[in-house]
């Protein structure tokens, strides 16, 4: 039985579990009267979970080596919890008219964030499977949360079927990995790979990594496991989409990085080749298809597929042995933090407009600048950041990721990335063009609730401030490279 200190090390997870259950109890007892309190209970849980993190920074694994307590995991836990807070803030107004079951929604969301935290810490095959499935189940339910809405139903079933097949593929890979080492820990697997010169072990290793990539690729929406993304983004409730695009993607990257760097260092050349192909396809397909989209949510889906491609460049260029500002790994962390505020900020605006007018098509955004000048102006900020144009934090992220690719000599990847960034400007600015240079059909002002204005302002401020003063973010990401089981200078 683990002692009290071990339990304290997972206090962020425990806090979220308690608050999730608390939400459902409050909902049961208070009924409709309690609905105004629930989002703030969830937010309090997220804040407490983040607040405990600085007190836990220890490099160790607990529960027989199945769960890592390291700075890398903490970085992703913070990203998940911040994503959770912003998602709750945009859900309040969105849910008001759409569903009576508010308690269930916040419960599922809190547990989804809990699942992302567990993914970030998993160092055993069993924990990888359990945490990925936990997040998947919560996401399926959230995607289909609006039961009366045909599109929400359709999004959920498509998400579920893609997810179940890819997770079965991943599970088959996990069973092969168990067969290789007879152990569930990634650390034992690493030793086994390093000690064995057997060709069949090598072949099994490569096959298993490819199978695992199906599960991870599904979470980060990398080609060819991306097909769910456009439909889910279009059909699912928009706050859920905002969470999936950031929280779920970040957790997927956490697992991919941890597994690739700690369990598969002996297959470095092989997984780099595999991921390079995936990254190039992901960037190019995401951007080219995004050019033809007219639905803003669908456009953001293809944009988020393309962004996953850029982040994959950082994974490929990840070098943990040198000493340089461009380590690849820190590039991914900076990029994810930048993407968190940028993409969630953009989604706040999409939700605000959807709530006020029901509009999700680009032509309906015509003349937005006259109807909601603040939202239109901040849209420009977020799209600049998504396209990676200074002075926004998206530029800092791209700078570090592409810098690492150049340093490690992946010139082709960097070139494809830069060309794709240029392409992405076209579709981001098709929305801006509609918002600024076309005449509105209906010139009434769009009313935005205070909570939404506040959250969009915070996101925009961070997007600009972190770009002008990037040092704190760079330091945090540098610290976040502390992954258990890899040597650091």
């Amino acid at each position, binding site marked *: 039985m683990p002692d009290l200190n071990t339990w304290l090390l997972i206090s962020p997870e425990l806090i979220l579990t308690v608050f999730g259950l608390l939400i459902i109890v409050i909902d049961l007892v208070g009924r409709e009267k309690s609905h105004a309190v629930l989002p703030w209970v969830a937010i309090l849980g997220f804040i407490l979970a983040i607040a405990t993190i600085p007190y836990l920074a220890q490099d160790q694994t607990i529960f*027989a*080596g199945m769960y890592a307590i390291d700075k890398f995991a903490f970085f992703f836990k913070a990203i998940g919890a911040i994503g959770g807070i912003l998602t709750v803030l945009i859900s309040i107004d969105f849910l008001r008219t759409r569903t009576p079951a508010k308690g269930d929604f916040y419960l599922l969301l809190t547990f989804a964030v809990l699942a992302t935290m567990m993914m970030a810490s998993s160092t055993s*095959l*069993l924990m990888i*499977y*359990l945490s990925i*499935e936990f997040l998947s*189940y919560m996401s*399926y*339910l959230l995607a*289909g949360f609006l*039961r*009366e809405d*045909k*599109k929400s*139903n*359709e*999004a*959920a*079933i*498509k998400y*579920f*079927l893609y997810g*179940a*097949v890819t997770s*079965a*593929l991943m*599970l*088959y890979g*996990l*069973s*092969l990995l*168990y*067969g290789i*080492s*007879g*152990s*569930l*820990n990634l650390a*034992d697997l690493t030793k086994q790979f390093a000690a064995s010169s057997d060709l069949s072990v090598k072949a099994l290793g490569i096959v298993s990594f490819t199978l695992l990539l199906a599960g991870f690729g599904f979470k980060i929406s990398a080609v060819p496991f991306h097909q769910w993304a*456009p*439909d889910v983004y*279009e*059909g699912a409730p928009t706050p859920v989409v905002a969470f999936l695009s950031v929280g779920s993607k970040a957790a997927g990257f956490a697992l991919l990085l941890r597994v690739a760097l700690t369990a598969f260092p002996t297959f470095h050349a092989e997984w780099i080749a595999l991921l390079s192909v995936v990254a190039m396809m992901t960037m190019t397909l995401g951007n080219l*298809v995004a050019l033809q*989209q007219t639905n803003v949510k*669908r456009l953001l889906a293809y944009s988020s597929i393309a962004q996953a491609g850029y982040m994959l460049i950082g994974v490929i260029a990840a070098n943990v042995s040198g000493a340089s500002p461009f380590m690849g790994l820190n590039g991914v962390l900076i990029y994810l933090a930048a993407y968190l505020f940028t993409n969630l900020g953009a989604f706040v605006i999409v939700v605000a407009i959807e709530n006020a007018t029901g509009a999700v098509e680009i032509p309906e955004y015509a003349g937005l600048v006259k109807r909601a000048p603040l939202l239109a102006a901040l849209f420009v900020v977020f799209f600049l950041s998504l396209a990676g144009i200074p002075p926004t934090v998206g530029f800092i992220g791209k700078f570090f990721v592409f810098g690492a690719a150049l340093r490690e000599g992946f010139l082709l990847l960097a070139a494809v990335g830069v060309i794709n960034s240029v392409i992405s400007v076209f579709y981001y600015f098709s929305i801006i063009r509609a918002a600024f240079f076309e005449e509105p059909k209906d010139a009434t002002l769009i009313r935005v609730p205070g909570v939404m204005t506040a959250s969009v302002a915070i996101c925009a401020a961070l997007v600009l401030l972190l770009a002008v003063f990037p040092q704190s973010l760079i330091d945090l990401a540098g610290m976040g490279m502390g992954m258990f089981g890899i040597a650091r200078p």
Partner: protein
Amino acid sequence: MIPLQYFLLLGAAMFCLGLYGALARRNAIAILIGIELMLNAVNINLVAFWRYIKPANPAFELAGQVFALFVITLAAAEAGIGLALVIAIYRSRDTVNVEDVNLMKW
């Protein structure tokens, strides 16, 4: 004793059948059955490996069995969620054929 390969071949064959079913069928329930078949193929793998491989780390003596138990549990949870979603789509659309579920297309 039956060699390990036989179990692995059975597992691989079952997995491929399940994958084929999941990809080729158009009925959401049939796809779910294919997925269950894939998960059970994994269970065969796990238990066979457990029987034949002695782990270096004694903490993982029962790992294969325990993993298989978790897979069975999660398969049940997955079927629960999957069938709930199928019922939801059946109520709103009167079909469980995934080709007819096509409000959204690129």
